[in-house]
């Protein structure tokens, strides 16, 4: 039976998760309200051809054009008012959001409905990442000197590594129900649970 996955946030991590999950026997719905800017093309799986387009819609178009992979795109911001409508039907959630408020919406919904949720998270300097199943996930607030993350392209390989570990953890869950969680530093992947 096909697993219905809802991926929330298709920026740096989420766009690469969609790319790397394309061969899995899953259906994928991606949610993101944001539009693609020039700087995003340095660190996200979005192309110059999609500048100005919605990230979710552009990703769906790219995946279909390059790989024939069908993705459902939802070009909306997740809010308390629409969280039920947008996440319902998902057998599993993947949170690759970039703000604590939206992560809390996802986490609360996942726990209320007992839906497995895998979180991906990056440090502002692109030097630390987490891939954590919800039972162990702590939501980090942005630091006061909130800096845009990973925008200069220097961290692309690390971002892709975190995304790859996230998809591997997802595969382990789909295959055997496992929930392996990891912390990542440059050149190092540490299983934490």
């Amino acid at each position: 039976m096909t697993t219905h996955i809802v991926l929330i946030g298709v920026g740096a991590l989420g766009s690469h998760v969609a790319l790397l999950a394309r061969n899995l026997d899953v259906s994928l719905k991606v949610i993101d309200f944001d539009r693609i800017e020039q700087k995003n093309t340095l660190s996200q799986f979005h192309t110059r051809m999609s500048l100005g387009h919605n990230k979710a819609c552009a990703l769906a178009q790219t995946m279909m054009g390059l790989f024939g992979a069908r993705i459902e795109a939802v070009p909306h911001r997740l809010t308390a008012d629409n969280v039920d409508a947008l996440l319902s039907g998902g057998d599993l959630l993947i949170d690759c959001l970039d703000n604590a408020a939206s992560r809390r919406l996802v986490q609360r919904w996942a726990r209320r409905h007992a839906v497995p949720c895998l979180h991906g998270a990056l440090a502002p300097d692109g030097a630390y990442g987490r891939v954590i199943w919800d039972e162990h996930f702590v939501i980090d607030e942005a630091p006061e000197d909130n800096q845009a993350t990973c925008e200069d392209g220097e961290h692309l390989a690390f971002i892709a590594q975190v995304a790859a570990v996230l998809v591997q953890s997802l595969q382990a869950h789909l295959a055997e129900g496992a929930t392996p969680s990891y912390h990542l530093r440059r050149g190092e992947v540490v299983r934490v649970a």
Partner: protein
Amino acid sequence: MSTTHPRRHEARVNITLNGQNGDMSDPVPFDATDQQIKHWSLEAIRSGTVSGISPRVAGSLEGCVIDRFPATATVPVNRIFVRPRTPFG
């Protein structure tokens, strides 16, 4: 540098600060407060006993987060991570 194996109520502490990373040589109580863990971590870094972290990088750990993971079958030791915040995705 040798490290002491944690007992059941203790945890191994791993610290990441300013891009450097290392384990504290001695375990700490798993139920220590966040402030205690940050204090001990900073003391250990300043004393040069955290292999992998130069005492010169020791600044404040106030912006760091404490993560706790109890021992499991696959990771058979309690772990505490002192790490930078990861608010982005």
